[in-house]
Each structure stands twice: as structure tokens, then as C-alpha cells.
């Protein structure tokens, strides 16, 4: 089997607890996004579009959904004979015994055997919960041009937000001199996007060394990168200017959807030169009835609109009954909104049924919070749910 110049290792282990009830039954990378996708579609499609055809997905929470979603990878053209996408769960080793992934770096350490199968020169490390379109082949080109040992993708963040990110201090040539996790007084506003290219021989060495240290938490940001900086490895910042969003909270999840509704959204999902692929369910076309009305919204196939939809994202297979009104909301797949119900600023999770004449997030709007209705709930006729409520 011929080797690969570069393979990708995708960390899909995040519990995503800040997303509340949304991640109750789903690993964060499996969360639906944008009316059509799941978060993991973005890094997987980016890989395929960048010509990276070998991706190991490391996961240990609720792998069944992710596993059956990824399938053989054909949705992203990642069903390759040599390579392709594969889910890598933790396993029992006869010598080492049981080992769950203790941190981002440790997850990769435990899959050294998998990586070595492809004898790669470079390893791209990604996480599965960011929304962005990026050509990793340009980052690899940069990595090679700089003759770097490590490249870290960075973007400029507003100075007031620097205390929420891993911040890079660089020299004039963008070589990283210092890496600070959530600094109070940042010298730079270059934040790590959690996207790394490592020259594999170095990464392997540091992973092995890190594992010997019982105090390490086996994490890239906390352990591996600081160790490498200390050893004066050549680590470069790769600047990225496009749309990038960590949808780690309900608020950021909601606002990322509102971003999409803009006519010239920064994240252009209609661009046929950089297609974000997803697993396509087989569903009939969208139906909008003679009484239906859809304004400033995204609607996906299989949905039937008999009521009014405004400033909202409607995933597939959803029914908005007559006289129902949906505003500034995100309706995940397979939801029914009953006749005459009113939904405002809410995230309605999969398989929810809302009976007729309910009012969700209706009333005073002062604390401006998003209401979330958890997967599979049935809301009986006439229910009123207050702003900001999370129904598990």
C-alpha cells in the first residue's frame, strides 16, 4: 500500500456540555447545522476538497450516531480503497489494558498504529465542531515553504475577546514565540483555530514523551505545543481570514444560523467550487401551500409549510401547520409545529411535536434568551413556554 503525504486526524470526542440539552444524545460533531448539515460535515468536506483522502475520526462518546452517519464515507467521497474515513474508537490493548482517550494528544497517541499504516510525512489535526471552509492544501504549502515543524492556523479576533482563546505571540515572520491560553493582557490577537499541521516524525516523538509524563493531561494546547516551543521547534502561524465560528454555546449556535440568512452570508453554502457535503436523506421537495408564507428563511426538502416562517432555518421533514408562526428560530429535522402555535427565538430539536396553539418563547423578551426544546419532546396543545427555558 503506497504511503500518504498527509493524513488528517479529526478529534470528535467533545462532550459539548455548553450546548445543554442539544448534546444529550449526540456527540457535538453530530449536531445538525444550517438546515442540512452536521458540524462534522465541515472538516470532512474541507478534507475532501483539499485533496486529503485519509481521515481518522477519534470518538468515544455515543459513537453509534456518528458511526452510522459517517458510514463508509461515500457522502464526502472519502470511501477510498487506500485511505478514506474511518472511525477510531478506544480499544483494549492486551499489554496496556483499557485506555479511554484522556486528552486530544492522547487520542492521537493511541492511534499511532493507524497513522503509521499510511507512513505520512505530515499529520493534520482537526476538531469536529467548528464551522468554516478552508483549503488545507494551502496551509500544507505554507508549512512546507516555511520549512516548519508545526503550523497552527490562526485568525485575528477582536482584542476584547483574546481572553477567550489560545493566543499566539509571533515574530515578524509569523514564527510563534509564545503560546498563551486565554491570557488576560494579550500582546497579540492571533487566536488558535485548533487546526495543526505537524511533521509526523516530531509529533510522534512528543506524543510518546508526553505519555511518559503521568502529570500531563495529554492535550495539544496545554502540553504538546508548550513542550515543542520550549524545545525551539519551528512553529509557524498560518493566517486565515474567512468565516470561522465555534458554535460551542446555544447563543453562538443560534447566531451562526442568523448569519446564514444574510443575502451575502460570509459562509457561502451555495458555492459549487467548495461544496459542503452531507448525508442526504431521501425526501420529497419542499411544499409551500397556497396559505403558506416564507420570508428571509432557509427551508430544506421534505418540509411542508402551511403557516408562516420568518427569519428562520427549517431543517428537513418538518411540518409547519396552518396559522402557525415561526420567527427567528431553528427547527431541527422531523418536527411538527401545530396549528396556530407561535414560536419565537427558539431551537426546536429533532423529533419534537408541538401541539396546536402553543406559545414558545412568547412574552417579555428582556433577558433575550433562546428557548431550547430537547429531542423527542411532545408539547401538548395550548402550552406556553417562557423565554430561555431549556426543556430536556
Amino acid at each position, binding site marked *: 500500500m503506497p504511503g500518504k503525504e498527509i493524513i488528517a486526524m479529526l478529534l470528535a470526542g467533545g462532550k459539548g456540555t455548553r450546548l445543554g440539552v442539544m448534546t444529550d444524545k449526540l456527540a457535538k460533531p453530530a449536531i445538525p447545522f444550517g438546515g442540512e448539515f452536521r458540524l462534522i460535515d465541515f472538516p470532512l468536506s474541507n478534507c475532501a476538497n483539499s485533496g486529503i483522502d485519509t481521515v481518522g475520526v477519534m470518538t468515544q462518546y455515543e459513537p453509534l450516531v456518528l458511526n452510522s452517519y459517517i458510514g463508509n464515507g461515500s457522502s464526502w467521497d472519502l470511501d477510498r480503497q487506500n485511505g478514506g474515513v474511518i472511525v477510531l474508537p478506544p480499544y483494549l490493548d492486551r499489554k496496556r489494558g483499557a485506555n479511554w482517550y484522556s486528552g486530544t494528544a492522547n487520542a492521537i497517541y493511541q492511534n499511532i498504529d493507524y497513522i503509521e499504516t499510511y507512513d505520512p510525512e505530515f499529520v493534520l489535526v482537526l476538531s469536529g465542531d467548528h464551522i468554516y471552509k478552508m483549503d488545507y492544501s494551502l496551509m500544507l504549502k505554507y508549512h512546507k515553504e516555511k520549512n516548519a515543524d508545526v503550523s497552527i492556523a490562526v485568525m485575528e479576533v477582536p482584542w476584547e475577546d483574546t481572553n477567550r482563546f489560545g493566543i499566539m505571540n509571533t515574530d515578524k515572520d509569523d514564527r510563534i514565540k509564545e503560546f498563551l491560553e486565554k491570557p488576560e493582557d494579550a500582546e497579540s490577537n492571533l487566536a488558535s483555530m485548533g487546526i495543526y499541521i505537524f511533521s509526523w516524525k516530531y509529533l510522534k516523538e512528543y506524543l510518546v514523551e508526553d505519555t511518559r509524563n503521568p502529570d500531563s493531561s495529554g492535550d495539544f494546547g496545554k502540553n504538546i505545543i508548550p513542550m515543542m516551543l520550549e524545545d525551539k521547534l519551528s512553529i509557524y502561524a498560518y493566517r486565515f481570514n474567512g468565516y470561522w465560528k465555534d458554535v460551542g454555546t446555544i447563543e453562538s449556535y443560534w447566531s451562526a444560523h442568523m448569519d446564514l440568512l444574510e443575502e451575502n452570508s460570509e459562509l457561502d453554502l451555495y458555492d459549487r467550487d467548495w461544496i459542503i457535503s452531507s448525508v442526504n436523506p431521501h425526501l420529497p421537495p419542499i411544499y409551500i401551500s397556497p396559505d403558506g408564507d*416564507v420570508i428571509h428563511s432557509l427551508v430544506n426538502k421534505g418540509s411542508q409549510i402551511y403557516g408562516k416562517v420568518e427569519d428562520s432555518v427549517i431543517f428537513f421533514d418538518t411540518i409547519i401547520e396552518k396559522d402557525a408562526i415561526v420567527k427567528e428560530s431553528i427547527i431541527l429535522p422531523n418536527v411538527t409545529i401545530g396549528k396556530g402555535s407561535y414560536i419565537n427565538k427558539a431551537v426546536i430539536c429533532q423529533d419534537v411535536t408541538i401541539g396546536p396553539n402553543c406559545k414558545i418563547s412568547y412574552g417579555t423578551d428582556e433577558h433575550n434568551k433562546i428557548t431550547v426544546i430537547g429531542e423527542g419532546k411532545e408539547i401538548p396543545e395550548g402550552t406556553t413556554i417562557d423565554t430561555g427555558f431549556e426543556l430536556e
Partner: protein
Amino acid sequence: MKNVMGIINNAQKEDFMRELTEIRSLASIPFGCRYRLIDFPLSNLVNSGVTNVGILLENKYRSLMDHIGPGKVWDLDRKRDGLFILPPAQVYGDNRFYKGDIENFYSNIDYIHRSSQDYVIISTPYMVCNLDYREIVKAHKESGADITLVYKQMPTLEDKSTCSILKTDKNNRVTELKVNSDLKNYDKVSLNKFVMKKELLLEIIDECVSMGRWDFIKDGIIGNLDRLNIHGYPFSGALGIINSIKSYYKFNLKLLNPEIWKDIFMTKTIYTKSKDEPPTQFTAVSKVKNVLAANGCIVKGHVENSLLFRGVKIEKGAVVKNSILMQKSTVGQNSRLNNVILDKNVVITPEKVLRGEENFPTIIKKNVVI
């Protein structure tokens, strides 16, 4: 249904829809916003548990092959059985003249022979419906008939071409069967879907070939009406007979009736090749009423009573009524369309007005810019 194979007969003359079939076979005509005609017979077979399907082809089939691929979408990419593309007869000899669809059956007789199934369903792409063959095969076996023919009771027929009409006796045995005839005195139309033993099909093919007769329905079925017990099976679901531009147009618009689109699209899943399109976007100024739309469209204008295929763009101020807009067609600002069919990739530049008649829609051919 492990013991039943399917043959979709796409080896038919299709002149009756020339405007749409010039560049594609009948089977690959776009239909219902997301589908092509072939999706219906293929999904019906697969939904009924048939896992060995042959598609007889006549010509212009590259678009069909692109659409079907290895049959993965229909779960027919299998090591045993699966999907078989059965190429036309004439390429086997140099420059011969085409005689009829029996020739296509005959040149693929090896495939039929070596299939392990004892029963065969023969279907066609121009009858659009959503049915389950399991009941029909069961009824076929119980009736003891040689052939079971599926029909639908219909008061009128949009266009008689390519249609067979029939009469049955009180036991549902077919007593009369005519092709291209008016419905007068008849009220049953054949769906041209047949169930029979594979052995009988082989016999019919053999007989037709040996007598130099080449039309499957006229010679193979009608020619055997006296000799064989042909049983009628009534179908009561929605049926689209796509045998003229008019019938194509009318039946597509009929889909806007929820009862009909639910019957056609949702009785069982209809599978089709998917294209990674994002959701359809409606803007602050869009106005849509009574519309079926595929994904990937961007609607800024006014659409009413119409079907939008994948990736259609309707600019601000445009008004589209009673029209069918195929994949990636664009309607420019302030243009107005009524009773129009736009084929794929048509561009209507701003401020144009196109208007057809209810019974005679204006058709704009693929890739045309107006």
C-alpha cells in the same frame, strides 16, 4: 420477493416528447422537482424487495447512466444480483436497422436466462406511480393467471399515444386490449406493468423473434391474448401518464395537490441521486404560494403554482406562475413567466415576458439564454 426479478423497458420510441427527449432518454426526463422518471419504476421494485433489476436501453442513455451510476442509491450495488444496464441490440451488429423492443429483450436474453429468479416484473418509465408489487405478485400467484397486467380505471385520458386500454370480464380476466386507441367504451388503462413467470417471458421473446415480430406489447402481450390467461390487477393510487408534453406539464402541476404529491412521493420512499445542495433560500422580499421546490434554490421573486428544480434562481421582482423550472435555470429581475417549462440551465435575462397556453406550455430548451 427474492424469487422475482425486474426489467424496466426503456427501449421505446419517445418521439412524442421530442422537446424534452432530444438530449436525453425518456427515462431520464426530470420530474417532480428532484426526480427523473426512472426513479419511480426503480424505487417501486426496490421497495417491493426486488434486488435484481435490468434496465433495457435504447439510445441517448449517457445521462441515464450518469444518473443511475452503480445503483448505490437504490441499494442495488451488489455482488450477487443488483442493477444491470442492458445495452441496445443494434450495437451488436454493425449498422442494422432497429426493429422494436423485442430485439432489446432478445439481445439481453442471456441476462434473463442466468438470473436465478422464477418470476419477472416488466415495467416502464413513463407511467409514474408509487406502488407495492408484493400484493400484485401475491394476487398473480393466487389467480393462477399466466400474466397479470396492472391497470387503472380512468374516466379520461390526456393523450392516447403509447397507451393500452382494456376491458376485463367479471373475473378480471382481460378480454380486450388495444394500443393508441380512444377511451370510448373503455375506462381502463394499462400501466404496462406485467407480472409473469420468467419462463413465459423467455417463451414470448423466443416466439416473437422466430416469427419476426418485434413489439413487446402488440406482439408479445396482445398477440397472446387468446392463448394466455391475462389477468387484470386494479391500481387505485395516483398515476401520471407521461406520453406528451401536455400530459407531462399537467401532471407536474397536479403534484401541487398535497393528496397527489403525498401519494406519488411518500407512499413509499422514492430514491434519486442526490447532489449536496444546501437548503432553499427565501429572502425578505420573496413571495411564494402553492409551490414545490427542490433544494439549492434562491428565491427573491414571486412564485405561484409552480415547480422549482434544484438550484433555480429567481431574482427580485420576477413573477413565475404555472411553470416548471428545471435544474439551475435562472429568471432575471422583473421577468414574468406564465405556463412555461424551462429546461436545465436556461437563463431568462431581466425584464423578459414569456407566456404559454394552459394546454400548450412554452418550452425553452436546455442551455438557452433569452
